[in-house]
């Protein structure tokens, strides 16, 4: 939101609702710096400017948000087709949980006789040599 007088197209209703009928707008809010935007809820408003005003009052008046996004619900493309999102066949092999590496790694190490590498912080310091030659 800015304190500039908004351009006419936002007020005469040609681009942001007809200015007479209420429609739903979805409000996303950021709770604190660094957080992702999360859906907060919705407001009814006749146009974008009033939608932003109402979003500010419903989702920001108690200082619970540091930023808001207000999107006309009609502008959201939705997908809720179960065939596309919840197909009937087993898909567990697509989940990261399907690959448990720990046991496979342990078996491979045992076979090759290698010990498990120590954590980085436990490694001894490199021997010091003439400047700039240590890694060559």
């Amino acid at each position: 939101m800015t304190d500039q007088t908004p351009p006419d197209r936002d007020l005469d209703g040609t681009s942001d609702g007809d200015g007479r009928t209420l429609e739903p707008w979805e409000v996303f809010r950021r709770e604190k710096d660094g957080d992702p935007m999360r859906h907060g809820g919705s407001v009814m408003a006749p146009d974008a400017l009033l939608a932003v005003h109402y979003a500010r009052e419903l989702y920001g008046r108690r200082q619970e948000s540091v930023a808001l996004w207000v999107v006309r619900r009609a502008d959201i493309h939705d997908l809720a087709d179960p065939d596309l999102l919840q197909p009937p066949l087993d898909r567990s092999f697509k989940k990261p949980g399907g690959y448990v590496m720990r046991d496979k790694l342990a078996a491979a190490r045992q076979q090759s006789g290698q010990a498990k590498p120590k954590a980085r912080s436990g490694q001894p310091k490199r021997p010091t040599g003439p400047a700039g030659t240590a890694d060559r």
Partner: protein
Amino acid sequence: MTTTRSALSASIDPAAEAVLDELILSMADDEFVIGFSDSEWTGIAPILEEDIAMSSLAQDELGHARALYELLAELRGAGQTADAIAYDREPADYRHARLLDHGRGDWAMTIARRYLYDTADGSRLEGLAKSSFAPLRELVDKIRREERYHVMHATTWLERLARHPGEPRDRLIASLEELAPDAATVFTPLDGEALLVETGLIAESMAALEARWRATITPLFVGLDLPMPPPGDLDGGRTTHGEPFRWLWGEFTSVRRSDPGAIW
């Protein structure tokens, strides 16, 4: 005024203190009265969202009033409290502008009053942004950051009503015409205000602030073809309160008067 001066008033030219007291009281009463008037929309505004928005604006104004009354109580010292100043006076002793004395009215009246008051208040706050009285300057800085949104909200609605021919525009113009004679009463000169200007407590006289206010709102009024309020009669602009205010006073003091002296 007591003979022993409060700690806070020690930094102020003693002669200017009474005028400063009057200035802070008039600002606090303005915010208090418009806050209560607008809170009458709670539960009956045009739509739920606007109901919450208007109620929230009304709470903001009461918050500003509280901060100003608290500053005034500290300035006066001698055991004064913000609540006592806010509630324990007779209607004739309130010093809000007559602009705020027209009753709640319809939605167009509320928007017209809010726009005229918020813009006038903005001009007055601008005049205090560099006040030599630090506690007031610091408070004004915080209030201005909230009032910016109030002006945006009022402007948004004023434009919508003005641009829709028929009932919305007709009602808006009727309200502006009813308020016109009192529109400038926010700038009613204070007794001895020259002293406030001399000591840097306020940047300019009320008359100069009124001129700034008119310059600020003229482009929008011209653009929307709305009647600019003519120069008004500011005589008694903060002292003559009519029947609508007596009714409002009865409402907002009713709980406090029901048990005088109670600790809430």
